[in-house]
């Protein structure tokens, strides 16, 4: 075997915060051979992206490399001159960012951005590069490969844009591509398509890749080797199959174990009972665009109904109808058998209090200028009229319920908390109103798996203690399996299937449900290969959805 393509030895990085340099990565080694794919996994803050960028000899502002060496094909990137680096980046090393939508320049056509690198580096002329782009679009199975490049970024879908970005990274046929969570923002059915095309093209051109992700099942499909990072330290490195079957370290095992959380099934619903929330034949529209059509389902006391579907399927809109932010154009919503006024403005305090909401992004759901104490205090004060000592006592009680120490967190600001803690505060704020029913809108999708599991367990415990009802909006079927009692599948504003969880995960089901279920990556490294063999490349993802 020849020399490795990328050789990182004892790399230490530091980041500047509060006028001090704090370590981000404490001495990591990395070796990547030509044509090899290395998966980097870890929670957020583990330093995966920083390490990925450092492999390009690049650091973000406020980050510096304090020790170690980074060699690319025998060139020391840390001491190389700016001119040498300019010759490498884009041409021999390329980068694919998490959000293609944010990384493309919205003012230029896709193909113009595609041809920039090859023409700048003198690899090929513009016309040649356009032809090559079309070839790549073909290989990545983008629809209308001849014309899609001549559109603007906002005119193509997220999954297509992510593939166009991969094509762009490929434009100079680099030796190394760094993929930084390329599918995290995508729906499962779209993700699978992007995964398949990335894997194919990387194999075809024998490109080495560093694939950064927090999703184990995804990395299992893509990588030859896996490196697990935790807080800037390497936990372990092994080839994919060994890593999956025989993880050595405790931390890795705990990552693997997350997916096993599942609640025991509850007894069947008493058919005569009044549901807590009943959605009856609801239609809704934004202006003249109809987004919900004839949606009906019930949520019973102490039960969790998971609403599943892709982005744009109307899950969140249903929640907005229930909360009254978007009054339905037809149909009604019953709470405990009573019809709720359509708009939240017409509801009284009692009605508002009974239905609470937990949001996806805890960052935008908590006022960054209010301390934790004040955030939780407000609903208690507002609904219960408590003040002084009784108020403080109730807030402490709520903080204990979400497993945070009251004295430690009361005066902190949301920015001083981790993602999982922030989400817990969101839960406490909802609980403060003492509701019967809580809408959880993708509450775990922005969190790392271990943290997400903690949140799910907390929600399950609270449900048992307080007999709460949840409407659980998610696109992640693992979450559905973990927490739900009943499942509602939505597509294009309609309810497609509705059943108890046990039935949902067993055939026969609706073709779309089937597609959704089969698109969820599994930990088996052969899963993607098998699926492609079974269905054929044209029968996965969006292509299959469009055929329905």
């Amino acid at each position, binding site marked *: 075997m020849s020399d490795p393509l990328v050789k990182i030895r004892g790399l230490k990085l530091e980041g500047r915060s509060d006028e001090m340099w704090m370590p981000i990565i404490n001495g990591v080694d990395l070796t990547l051979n030509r044509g090899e794919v290395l998966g980097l996994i870890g929670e957020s803050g583990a330093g995966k992206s920083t390490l990925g960028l450092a492999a390009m000899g690049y650091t973000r502002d406020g980050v510096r490399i304090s020790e170690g060496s980074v060699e690319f094909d025998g060139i020391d990137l840390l*001491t190389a001159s700016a001119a040498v680096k300019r010759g490498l980046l884009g041409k021999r090393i390329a980068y694919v960012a998490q959000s293609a939508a944010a990384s493309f320049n919205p003012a230029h056509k896709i193909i113009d951005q595609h041809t920039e690198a090859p023409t700048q580096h003198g690899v090929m002329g513009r016309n040649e590069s356009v032809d090559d782009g079309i070839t790549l679009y073909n290989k990545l199975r983008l629809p209308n490969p001849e014309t899609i490049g001549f559109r603007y970024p906002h005119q193509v879908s997220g999954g297509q844009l992510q593939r166009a970005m991969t094509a762009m990274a490929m434009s100079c046929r680099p030796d190394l591509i760094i993929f930084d969570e390329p599918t995290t923002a995508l729906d499962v059915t779209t993700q699978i398509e992007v995964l398949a095309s990335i894997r194919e093209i990387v194999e075809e051109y024998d490109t080495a890749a560093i694939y950064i992700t927090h999703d184990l099942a995804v990395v299992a499909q893509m990588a030859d080797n896996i490196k697990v990072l935790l807080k800037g330290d390497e936990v372990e490195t092994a080839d994919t199959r060994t890593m999956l079957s025989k993880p050595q370290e405790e931390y890795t095992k705990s990552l693997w174990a997350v997916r096993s959380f599942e609640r025991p099934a509850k007894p069947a619903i008493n058919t005569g009972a009044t549901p807590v929330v009943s959605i009856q034949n609801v239609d809704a529209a934004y202006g003249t665009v109809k987004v919900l059509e004839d949606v009906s389902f019930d949520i019973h006391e102490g039960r969790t109904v998971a609403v599943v579907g892709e982005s744009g399927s109307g899950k969140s809109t249903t929640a907005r109808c229930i*909360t009254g932010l978007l009054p339905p154009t037809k149909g009604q919503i019953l709470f405990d058998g009573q019809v709720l006024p359509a708009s939240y403005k017409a*509801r009284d305090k009692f009605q508002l209090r009974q239905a609470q*909401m937990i*949001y996806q992004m805890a960052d*935008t759901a*908590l006022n960054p*200028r209010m301390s934790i104490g004040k955030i939780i205090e407000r609903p208690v004060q507002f*609904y219960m009229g408590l003040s002084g000592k009784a108020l403080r006592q109730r807030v402490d009680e709520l903080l204990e319920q979400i497993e945070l120490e009251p004295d430690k967190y009361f005066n902190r600001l949301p920015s001083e908390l981790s993602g999982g803690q922030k989400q817990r505060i969101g839960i406490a704020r909802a609980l403060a*109103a003492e509701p019967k029913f809580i809408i959880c809108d993708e509450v775990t999708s922005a969190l790392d798996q271990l943290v997400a599991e903690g949140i799910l367990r907390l929600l399950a415990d609270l449900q048992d203690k307080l007999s709460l009802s949840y409407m659980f909006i998610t696109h992640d079927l693992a979450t559905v399996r973990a927490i739900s009692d009943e499942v509602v599948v939505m597509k294009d504003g309609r309810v497609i299937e509705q059943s108890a969880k046990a039935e949902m995960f067993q055939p026969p089901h609706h073709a779309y449900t089937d597609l959704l279920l089969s698109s969820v990556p599994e930990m088996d490294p052969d899963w993607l290969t098998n699926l492609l063999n079974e269905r054929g490349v044209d029968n996965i993802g969006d292509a299959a959805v469009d055929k329905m």
Partner: protein
Amino acid sequence: MSTLLWLVTVLGGIAVAGWVFRFAGQTVTGNAPRFRDMPYGVAFGYVLGVSILAWAIWYYFQPVTTEQGLPNAGVMFFRWGVQGLIIAMIAAYVFRFLGRLIGTANSKKLFRAMPLTAAFGILTIIIYAIFAIFADAIAPYGQEQIFEQANVLPGGDPALGGDPAHPLGTDQIGRDILSRLIYGAQNTVGIAFATTCLAFALGATFGLLAAVLGGWLDQLLSRAVDVLMAIPSLIFALLLMTIASVWASEWGIPLTIFMVVIIAVIDSTRVFRLARAVGVNIVVMDYIEAAKLRGEGMGHLIFREILPNATAPLLAEFGLRFCFVFLTIAALSFLGVGIQPPLADWGTMVRDLAPFINFAAFAPLAAVTPLLAAGAIALLTVAVNFVVDWMLHRSSGLKE
């Protein structure tokens, strides 16, 4: 022509020196990355900076009188400027040092992370505030008191036309300039501060209200503001002040109150624009939705949920707006409809003494008189902006 030639030679020399500097750096350090990757512009900047510094030191030590025995005004003003800067730095440093020693744990922490510019700004503002509040006790004479000797030069040295009783001299009708400067702090700064606060109260409230409610109210307010902004503000203020001066004498209300309200309303349009733009971005956040769904009223939404998140841009605007209001008042006073004589006002003082600037070449001390009031305005403007910059930096750091 020779001046141009001279300038080109100097710049060319620096350009060559920049290249030589970088080349020498590369050779001596054995191609260290610092010199190897240094763009030519940066090398040029280094050499230019060093050249300017060398020139400044040389100029500082030039004699203060020319060979003909005339004072060399340029050198004198330059020396004063440099000395002022050094004194300001020392004062700020001492102030920050004391702040780190004295006070509660929180205030000590605040001072530890404070840049020198902010310390200087805070110190200056404190001094101004003390002068403004205790003007009656501090000022040696009354602001309207006229002395026999007009046009006494500052400095207090009888040999140079000064008078120890009037350390900063007297103006063209014999009023003590030091006393008028101190009273001016009270009048000008006090009125400007009140006006800016009023402008912000109006602009921020309506701007955030428009952002939250949207719809026809937003349209109505925004278009009304567009109309107000379309009229040149100084001319509009002048027009309104002329009308107000009639009302003022009719109803017996001081004209100053009308001035405060008029400038506040005109300036609040700019604040409205900003507050609305910032507010629209905050209104879409989930925590606002959560508060709405909780059933919160408009007051809580605006003042508890939105306003704390809009403080950073609003504060920055406050610093800038304060300076503009200040200048508007000075301009109106200059035109005769602002703060009325004999009340001391810095804007009016600059105007009254402005002709003395012509004596700068042969009597630098006489030329200083209008610059004292102008300097007071400039110093406060700079100080306010230093403090606002620092607060902005702190608040954006917290958000991270």
